[in-house]
């Protein structure tokens, strides 16, 4: 899976510092992409964790994600002081469904249904093999 473009919008009320807002969103998005494509808490048949180092537990780095494009939306002011709203988690919440649905859309012509993450290359090939069999 290669992500060609990633666009994300958030509403955090009035932005105090846009740099911090974009940093928060970027961090969350990358974490979400990792969850969708790379990160896997795998265990062997005896229950031993097998992804115990960062050689096996794969996290996306800056080099593994596309340039993230931001849209800033301000709807109604939030309930807190100054009308500010939180911005900590949005990126991470939206990324997995966005990425998984993009893959699902790409695989739709084959009749593939995605039921689990991460969507590793081997997992995607296995899904394709299943519907072809």
């Amino acid at each position, binding site marked *: 899976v290669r992500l060609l473009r990633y666009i994300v919008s958030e509403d955090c009320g009035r932005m105090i510092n846009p740099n911090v807002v974009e940093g928060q969103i970027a961090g969350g998005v990358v974490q979400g992409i990792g969850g969708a494509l*790379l990160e*896997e808490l*795998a265990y062997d048949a005896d229950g031993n964790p*097998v*992804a115990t*180092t960062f*050689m*096996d537990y*794969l996290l*996306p*780095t800056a*080099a*593994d994600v596309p340039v993230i494009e931001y849209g800033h939306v301000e709807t109604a002011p939030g309930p807190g002081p100054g009308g500010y709203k939180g911005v900590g988690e949005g990126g991470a919440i939206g990324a997995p469904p966005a990425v998984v649905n993009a893959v699902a859309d790409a695989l739709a012509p084959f009749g593939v249904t995605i039921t689990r993450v991460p969507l*590793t*290359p*081997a997992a995607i*090939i*296995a899904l394709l093999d299943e519907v072809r069999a």
Partner: protein
Amino acid sequence: VKSAAFEYHAPARAEEITELLGELGDGAKVIAGGQSLVPMMALRLAVFDHLVDIRNVSGLRGIEGRNGNWKSGAAEHSAAEHGAAEHSARHGWSVWIGAGTTQAAIGGSDLVAKAVPLLARATPLIGHFQIRNRGTIGGSLAHAEAAAEYPAVALALGATVEALSPRGQRSIPVAEFFTGIWSTALEADELLTGVTFPVWGGAGGGCGFAVEEFARRPVDFALAGAAVAVELSGLDGSGGSRIRRCGIGLIGLGPTPLRASAAEASVTGTAAGDAGSAARAKEIGATAMAELDSVPSDLHGPAKYRKRVGAAMVATAWQRAVKEAVNQEAASA
């Protein structure tokens, strides 16, 4: 993640290293850059009482073009420099690379780029540039990681490893060098001092080289890959050409670095035009995978998947290499 305690030695002469290895026995390990060894020790996958570093031995570094008794060193006056098309300039030449030569130095060498293009092209695929700044070719070969690039390149090109021990120097063809998981033909007191790559193309045919690999992330261990070298016979009267010889090194597809001998044999001597077709490339990929009996299976991909990727890597690299060889031959005709 800290290594168990060890003693560190860094002699200035290769002979001192082999003496030390003889004295210290199994508890000692040569360190030649440490880009695999140190992480393994830090994770305690490996424990050694002594590390013997080759970094102070200047004679173990360098890249030289060689032809018989001729040598060309720093100035790199190798005949190979005169251009790929002039086969007489390549005949009989080889390139010697000292064991302690860093991957970065190899990647930056004009001589390597011209005389051993496959090695030059494989180099950027090794880890990050920080790793290539310290990692060495001797370390990479002696570590014998099945998913590493240099062992596959050495196998494909038919390189020769040289080893020094208190009993003297000997040469080991790379085909006989890798003996098991992270194991080589080196004796306990033997030091890998250098490796010699033959310069392909000396007999007049076009040559082509390609390396392909696939990893979860660009710098991870390859799930599967292939390094391919092709040499053609030279154009005959009717403007056709045949595969004179070829080498296919496999990456990450067994317990050791492997050579796809059956696939090579299946195509050697056949017409270049046909050998370079997509259908033929696919067959060669399939033949290369059919030989394999212990493809690794792990979290990142089951054996079946790796074989599938491996077949595609062999086919892609094969087609690119043949195309380059054919184009080179056409250009020099």
